């Protein structure tokens, strides 16, 4: 999850956030890390670029991008 946090910070240009300060279960959107809809698109790009995973069903987005842990679990599920 450490690599994923670093990739999120880099992809989303979160210069004010340190990767190690992002909690595994911290919400990524709104009250958590404060990401917005454009960031959601960037996370989809990140999955495709870094892990060759395409999020085919947009409705899965809110569940997949809930936290770093849910993202990591989704990546593992797609790789296995």
């Amino acid at each position, binding site marked *: 999850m450490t690599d994923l946090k670093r990739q999120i910070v880099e992809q989303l*240009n979160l210069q004010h*956030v340190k990767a190690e300060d992002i909690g595994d279960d911290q919400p990524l959107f709104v009250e958590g890390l404060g990401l917005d809809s454009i960031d959601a*698109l*960037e996370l989809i*790009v990140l999955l495709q670029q870094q892990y060759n995973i395409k999020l085919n069903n947009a409705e899965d987005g809110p569940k997949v991008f809930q936290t770093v842990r849910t993202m990591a679990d989704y990546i593992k599920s797609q790789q296995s």
Partner: protein
Amino acid sequence: MTEPLYITASCSIAGNIVAKDNKLLFANKGIAAQPFLVSVYEHFAFNYPRFYKMDNLCKLGWLAAEILLDQSFDKAQYQAGDVGLLVANRSASLDTDIRYFETVKTMASPALFVYTLPNIVLGEICIRHQFKGENDFFIFDNFEAGFMQYYTAHLFATGALQAGICGWLEIMDNRAAACLWLVEKKETPNAILFTEENIHHIYQTTHG
């Protein structure tokens, strides 16, 4: 007779120097535009995380507006719809358009795409300050003091504006240049008349 208008404050960011009302506030020579803009943000200890996500044109405009309005603008005197922005530049959003085009070759960046219009900077300033008045972004080969004066005065005369943030925001080839001024109906101790000559003088002081 038309009511006189006044320039009640001005701010410039050019040549890696930040000045307000012709007073030097910050300089950081010898670095490129992007790190310079971040250094300005850090120097003034602004706290607006969204800043980091902006493209360079928005960073430049956001910083210039922030410094222009700080302690010079009493927002409480105006309705949100009374405050507008009239800005111009030469290169539109080309600085970001080129960066976006580079990403298209591999995977297009949504975060860059949303900044591939020059007027987005006006939206960023409006979001920050909750302004809802007239917004215009013009593209000129060169700075047109006469047009800026005429069009701004027209908007005041028709009642569309009670206060205006106007000026020039240009970024290209790693060079940033901003010159914003605040136009109001009230005369303040350091205000100067809103005339073509005075606009030209402010612009020349920055870009001369």
